[in-house]
């Protein structure tokens, strides 16, 4: 029986022109707007090869300074010592893009409005070196030449705004796939179709799959069309298309399961849509959907909590590097969300169907 349920729900979702239009036009318009808005920023960042930065030591471990300089060279940041003078005057006189003042337990980064992108890059670099490179810098005391584990992606190769937003907004809309089911679910409730289902042999898991599978197929179809259109319109590079497709598909499934779970718990389409969009907005906020994750000042643990961050990072790295260590975490994260949300959704549906005496 589930075959017919899937088939007809799929037809219903695909015939809901409003939701299909949102899923198709949404990414196309948002990608156009954001990639255009951020193109200058990311282009200038892309154009940065190496840039000079001054530094001054108040009280700091020499090994840390040396390690910072070495990692900086690899990232295109050249450190020059200026022990004296007003920092502002030194920066202007020597055309420095930034300045770092090292103390015993802190460092201060000075940036210039004339070198905005270099300033952001320097802040991010220092944050990475100081927060993640401590262990390695201790090793430097014993071994003369060990590079700090500074992640390379943020510095080379750079990704342009069209590729970045072209990828992350396909990801973002994947998580909003529940919108495709709004027509079916509102009809079911409004016209008492839910009661027809209850007076039948259908189980809660069949009922769940009868909606979950069509949502995934509809969103996948919509996203495939949106992706092809955006690739043709904006020349977006997806790196490894097959692997990227698998990742996107898994995230569509996770988004659909999350939506179904919220619906079965709340029993309200309005609450479901509000909750899902809020959750996805926050996941995207931490995950690089709005501010690129490269320049994001969000705490790292918050970024890591967002499955959208893992997905964005995996796909962006696949696009610009051809490989990514985030592929595995994206797959695991998406599968875990799908399985857990599906189980909760089926259980919630069962409890609701059972009713209260």
């Amino acid at each position, binding site marked *: 029986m589930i075959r017919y349920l899937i088939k007809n729900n799929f037809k219903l979702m695909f015939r809901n022109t409003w939701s299909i239009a949102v899923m198709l036009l949404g990414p196309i318009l948002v990608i156009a707007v954001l990639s255009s808005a951020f193109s200058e920023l990311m282009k200038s960042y892309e154009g940065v090869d190496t840039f000079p930065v001054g530094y001054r030591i108040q009280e700091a471990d020499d090994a840390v300074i040396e390690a910072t300089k070495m990692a900086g060279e690899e990232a295109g940041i050249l450190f020059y010592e200026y022990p004296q003078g007003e920092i502002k005057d030194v920066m202007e006189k020597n055309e420095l893009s930034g300045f770092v003042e090292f103390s015993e337990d802190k460092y201060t980064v000075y940036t210039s409005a004339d070198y905005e992108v270099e300033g952001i890059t320097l802040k991010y670099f220092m944050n990475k070196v100081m927060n993640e490179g401590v262990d390695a810098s201790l090793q430097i005391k014993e071994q003369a030449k060990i590079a700090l584990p500074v992640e390379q992606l943020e510095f080379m190769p750079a990704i342009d705004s069209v590729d970045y937003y072209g990828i992350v907004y396909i990801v973002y809309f994947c998580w909003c796939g529940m919108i495709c089911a709004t027509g079916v679910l509102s009809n079911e409730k409004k016209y008492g179709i839910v009661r027809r289902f209850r*007076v039948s042999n259908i189980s809660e898991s069949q009922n769940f799959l009868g909606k979950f599978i069509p949502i995934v197929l509809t969103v996948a179809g919509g996203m495939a069309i949106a992706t092809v259109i955006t690739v043709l319109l904006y020349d977006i590079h997806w790196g490894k298309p097959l692997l990227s497709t698998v990742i996107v598909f898994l995230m569509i499934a996770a988004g659909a399961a999350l939506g179904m779970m919220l619906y079965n718990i709340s029993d309200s389409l309005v609450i479901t849509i509000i909750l899902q969009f809020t959750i996805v907005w926050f996941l995207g906020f931490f995950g690089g959907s709005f501010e690129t994750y490269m320049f994001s000042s969000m705490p790292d643990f918050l970024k890591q909590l967002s499955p959208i961050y893992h997905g964005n990072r995996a796909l962006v790295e696949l696009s610009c590097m051809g490989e990514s260590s985030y592929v595995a975490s994206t797959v695991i994260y998406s599968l875990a969300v799908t399985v857990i949300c599906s189980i909760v959704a089926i259980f919630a549906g069962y409890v609701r169907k059972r009713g209260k005496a």
Partner: protein
Amino acid sequence: MGNIILKTTDLTKKYNNKAVVDNLNIEIRKGEIFGLLGPNGAGKSTTMNMICSIVRPTAGEIELLGKNPWKQKKEVIHKIGYIPQELAIHGNLKAWENVELFTSLYGIKGQELKKAVGDSLEYVGLLERKQEFAKNFSGGMKRRLNIACALGHNPELLIFDEPTVGIDPQSRNFILDKIKESNAKGATVIYTSHYMEEVEAICTRIAIMDNGKIIACGTSQELKKLVNSGHENITLEEVFLTLTGKKLRDYAE
């Protein structure tokens, strides 16, 4: 007992400690067209919903074809054809797709499903229009499609919850004829409506329900005899108003 298709014993449903259905005891025999009448809020739809295992009873027992529909749902639910008061169809599906969807919920598939869809649509006079979207149908056609969606699995008990609301006399007449035809073919029917003349025309036995209880039950002639109105040509509506009162019932069921 073998002749009894539905029996409720002290069936009760309470919402917030208020009994909507209060110790209801009814017996419906195989082959009957059983009419359930009552003002708004009398508990008719709640009773139907409990019988169809949509709403869980607070207390009491339901025996449907010898089984408890709440405990042995899989064994008995496919024997029920439920026609809800609302037009429980998808406007964005074609007529045949609607019937296919709801008939398939009973495990019917393949050629058997195809035949059941065709038979159901033919039965309600919509076979010629099977390729049209339900949203483009008139009110009467939607009502007929609503019925077709509950017939495909060939149920033994048909439960009609006000199936003729808001349709023209031709469609109403057609639906009533089809109910009688289904009954003649062996189906037992439970029929709720506010239209007294409909109930009187097709029902073999009628129960009048108010405040969650059956206040009178019998053939239309027996009900008329219950009320001593002083004139012979008393209508079922007069009986109904005498038993349930003329006070407006403005609360929802």
